[in-house]
């Protein structure tokens, strides 16, 4: 299917003989907002790590826009146009917000390993970085070290680093984890704004966010997708009710 931005074909992963991902099939259409939900330990973060080359898959294939990207290095995956965020904030703590964003733009804007150009003189680069900071609402924190930002600001920067450079496919890993209601609203609004016209795959625990944001939802339980569909379909799916929503309801 030419319309597929991201496709996982029977991806499996063993850790020391235990199968954590047991044949994952997932297909995300272009410009779709796709959410993956599932209980803790279902393998959501592992799936992300397999897609982005952080872990090697045991078997199966990963395709990006029809191109095989299985087991490429993380930087190669990024160069092919897939970018991800992390569940645990993963930024450059001893650099300013501006430098964080600018570094994330460098490769995408073709600077590679050049040591003969001065970043200060690259007008387009600096303008783009400023634009992203403005979108993130971090303008007044531009020159603050990323390590001393508040948690919500760091999460915003995390998303900024991910979307900088205009990757076509964006993978977000629990972008609102550990946030207050107002902070969540801010982040969701931000995600909506910055992923406009892009393909989004998001792992999220907050069902409100998921049903609000996603066009389609996949439910991952014990390393397998047990259902995929629109929010309404998933809500009404019997297996999902039992495996996930039921359990989640009991918890609350």
């Amino acid at each position, binding site marked *: 299917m030419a319309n597929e931005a991201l496709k996982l074909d029977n991806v499996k992963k063993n850790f020391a003989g235990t199968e954590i991902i047991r044949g994952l099939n997932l297909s995300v259409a272009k410009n779709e907002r796709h959410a993956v939900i599932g209980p803790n330990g279902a393998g959501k973060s592992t799936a992300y790590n397999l897609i982005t080359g952080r872990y090697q898959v045991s078997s199966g294939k990963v395709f990006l826009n029809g191109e095989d990207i299985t087991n490429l290095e993380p*930087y190669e995956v990024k160069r092919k146009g897939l970018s991800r965020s992390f569940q645990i904030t993963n930024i450059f703590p*001893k650099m300013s917000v501006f430098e964080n964003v600018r570094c994330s733009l460098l490769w995408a804007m073709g600077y590679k390993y050049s*040591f*003969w*150009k001065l*970043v*200060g003189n690259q007008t387009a680069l600096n303008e783009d970085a400023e634009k992203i900071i403005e979108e993130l609402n971090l303008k007044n924190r531009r020159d603050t070290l990323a390590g001393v930002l508040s948690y919500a600001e760091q999460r915003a920067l995390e998303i900024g680093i991910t979307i900088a450079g205009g990757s076509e496919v964006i993978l977000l890993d629990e972008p609102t984890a550990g946030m207050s209601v107002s902070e969540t609203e801010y982040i969701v609004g931000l995600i909506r704004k910055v992923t406009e016209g892009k393909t989004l795959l998001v792992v999220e625990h907050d069902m409100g966010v998921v049903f609000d944001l996603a066009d389609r939802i996949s439910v991952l339980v014990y390393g397998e997708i047990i259902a995929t569909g629109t929010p309404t379909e998933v809500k009404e799916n019997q297996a999902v009710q039992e495996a996930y929503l039921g359990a989640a309801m009991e918890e609350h």
Partner: protein
Amino acid sequence: MQKSVFTSALPWIFAAAILIVLPFIFTGGGSITIMNQIGITIVLAMSYNMLLGQGGMLSFGHAVYMGIGGFVAVHVMNIVENEYLWLPLPFLPLVGGLVGLGFATIVGSFSTRKAGTVFAMISLGIGELIAACCIIITVFFGGEEGISGDRTMAPPTFGIEFISQKEVYFLIAFWVLLSIFVMYLFTQTPVGKMANAVRDNPERAEFVGYSQRWVRYVSFCGAGFFAGVAGALFAINYEILTEQNLNTVMSFQVLLATYIGGVGFFLGPVFGAILFTILQTVIGLQTDLWALYTGIVFVLMVMFLPTGLTGLFAMHLIPLQLGRLGMLIKPYAKIFVPGLAFVVGAIALIELINHVRHHAEEQFMTLFWIEFDTTSFLPWALFLIMVAVGFYVSRAFAKEVAEAWGEATFVEGERR
């Protein structure tokens, strides 16, 4: 936002002016020699900081790149002397640099795969290997005597033959400024910025499209180049290189000078190199225990002041901006007296014991310009009291300093 060319050039013009004026201010016999040594150490320490401070690579064998650059520079000097090659002396550092770069491209191709412990161990292994080779490959390294040359035999540059130390000073000063300038420009390039990013978070750097290995490799090669420049400057200044210039002890001294200055700051190593060289040459003349003192100071600094001297200054910018620097003067003054008593007492005690153990045949010794009898009871008692009281009192005052510091830097609602 764009600063004018003149404003950004101003610090460099200022630095150049200082470098030109210095030899006319410090005209004493040894001062130019010391300044030359400082210049060489600055280039070496700055290049080391490209690795450790900006790239997050801890090397225990950085002296190797300087040493190899220096050895080749001496060989080239000899070739020029025999007139097989025409090369004016000011260009020799470029040769040294290219040699350092060449060696770094080879070693870096396998050592920069990982940072951290593995990188450190490879650097140590390479350092030991090359130091051991000094004895074996005598054609190149000259065995234990090393190899020597004569800088004055190069073709004159505008009539200058570099016979006097002062002429050499200007050559070194030129290369110091040029090296710092180029290294500064490097920090402003895409790969220089990414070096910081890889240092901070190598994994995330990969997820923004850069291979951490290649980013490290570029920095590593750059550091090798400038270490080689320092080596050639050393060759020009001393006209001899031996195994001692590239062994692990030398590498340790590079680390020491850089760390004392402050690895987190671009110009930190400059201050480190100045202080280290002055301590080495001045204190080294006064006592044969100088290595022990520097070692102890270094270990204490790693424990209590990991940001180095520059970091200490930078810390004080916060109370300065808040206009509260005055709050610190009193507690600092209070701790200074007992602190000084403790340090002086401890040094005196160490020197006294050393004297009694290894020079017992001489009854009198001179310390801090005072001669006294080592067999009498009085100096022992005095020094012991200084150490004990000094330690106790300064520890009590340290609490006050900490409190005053907390007050002077307190900002409401800021995460620190």
